[in-house]
């Protein structure tokens, strides 16, 4: 899923300073799963905003709404109406959701309440880790199901580098060496033959390096 993390409260408060009528808009998709922007987080942030304003002795009128997803236009249709006379929408969705909301609710500014950080998995409740860089050319078949682009700090295709120490990346002992993981997996699968082949240079043109991407599936229109 897409993993996001709430922005520092100070930053959110600062951006909202010019406004008195705010709609906090949550999303039941990824941000609910990683507890960053679902209905519960909408409620907590809304209340925190009220507290902070009250502390200044200034008014704020905070409305709350959580929609199915902010990345599909159909779910955003009711938002403009439900926003009523709000002056700003504080979206707790990922960057994609914030943008589509902004596109669809033209009359209002839409501000992000979270930082969209990565595509990843829950290793356990409350611990999320990056797994995919959306390079557009999945290499997992050659590396035992572990991604060298996302899990190696240097996105090396023929790793590990000389900094791999005791299974950890040189940048931090909290980061496993992606290539150690790949080698362990290939050994377990009896596929070290894959390791001996020199992997070719990545084609980064399918990633964001090649420009913003778009897929059109005509049969779905």
């Amino acid at each position, binding site marked *: 899923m897409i993993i996001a993390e709430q922005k520092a409260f100070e930053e959110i408060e600062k951006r909202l300073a010019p406004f008195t009528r705010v709609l906090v808009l949550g999303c039941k998709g990824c941000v609910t799963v990683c507890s960053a922007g679902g209905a519960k987080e909408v409620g907590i942030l809304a209340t925190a905003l009220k507290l902070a304003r009250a502390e200044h002795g200034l008014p704020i009128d905070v409305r709350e709404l959580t929609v199915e997803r902010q990345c599909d236009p159909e779910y955003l249709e009711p938002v403009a109406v439900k926003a009523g006379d709000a002056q700003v929408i504080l979206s707790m969705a990922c960057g994609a959701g914030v943008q589509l909301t902004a596109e669809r609710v033209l009359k209002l500014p839409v501000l992000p309440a979270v930082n969209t950080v990565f595509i990843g998995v829950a290793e356990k409740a409350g611990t999320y880790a990056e797994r995919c860089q959306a390079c557009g050319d999945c290499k997992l078949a050659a590396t035992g199901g572990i991604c060298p682009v996302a899990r190696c700090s240097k996105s*090396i295709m023929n790793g590990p580098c000389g900094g791999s120490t005791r299974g950890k990346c040189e940048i931090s002992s909290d980061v496993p060496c992606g290539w150690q993981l790949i080698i362990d997996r290939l050994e377990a699968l009896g596929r070290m033959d894959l390791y001996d082949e*020199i992997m070719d240079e990545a084609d980064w043109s399918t990633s964001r390096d090649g420009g913003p991407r778009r897929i059109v599936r005509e049969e779905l229109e």
Partner: protein
Amino acid sequence: MKSGSNLEAVLAAGHFAVTSECGPPRGADVEAVKKKAELLRGHVDACNITDNQTSVVRMSSIAACSIIREMGLDAVMQMVCRDRNRIALQSDILGGYALGIKNVLCLSGDHQTFGDHKQAKNVFDIDSIQLVRMVKRMRDEGKLLGGDDLQGRPRMLVGAAANPFADPFAIRARRLKKKIDAGADFIQTQCIYNIPKFKEWMKQVVDMGLHERTAILAGVTPLKSYKMASYMATSVAGMDIPADVLERMKNVPKDKGAGAAEGIKIAIETIEQLKEIQGVRGVHLMAIEWEKAVKELVKGAGLHPRPMVEAHDVANGEVKDNG
């Protein structure tokens, strides 16, 4: 001869080679480069210039290599994959050769979190093994990675690094093979303090016949003090300093220079042992910010004077050794 570089000629003539390295200045001070190079002249067969090592901005390797070339030293241009994409790397290979640089060392590069610009975007378009292969192709086939032909080939000796002490130990020789398959003509290793472990690695290397396909230069770094030794032992990834070496450095008398003297002694002993190991064709002396020590090491290990080999003599199959 692939490049006609002095390093290649010395190796081809069968001598035990000596290379060293220089870190360029953190500024535009040309004299700083010349001073360091002057300390090495006559004591090494070629001199590496590092490429923004540890992600710290320094004068570019290509520029500093050009400066030492003009002084008459054979330069080894280090190139990391961290900062430049395949376009810039190929361009610098061509530019480097145009400036008279005949050796290149292909590296991944330390991650930018180590350096002075942690917020930089990291490039890593290709990795060190792909870089080796790319340069070899430019030299031997006259082609760019994209397939187009070159107008003039960069005839460079291609090197790569190897770390016998980094994990996972089990695949180190296998990864070395990949680098050699890709075309590495020479290998410079991380600095060695643990001779038995290095011997284990070399055995694997020799068993795979890799020592015959590439020239392995064993890395040596003299320790300056116990403080330096313990820092390296604990805080530098991929470093292996055995307890007995640490003890020796710890037990030196408190006199000024005693630590350095012991460090030099240990380094010379290391070089002597390395000379005896099958498959080791030379040493790569990394005396960081202590280039003065190189002269002592080379002399102390009986590697002075350096051989004067004429490249064309070797090319014709006759080794006319004037050294």
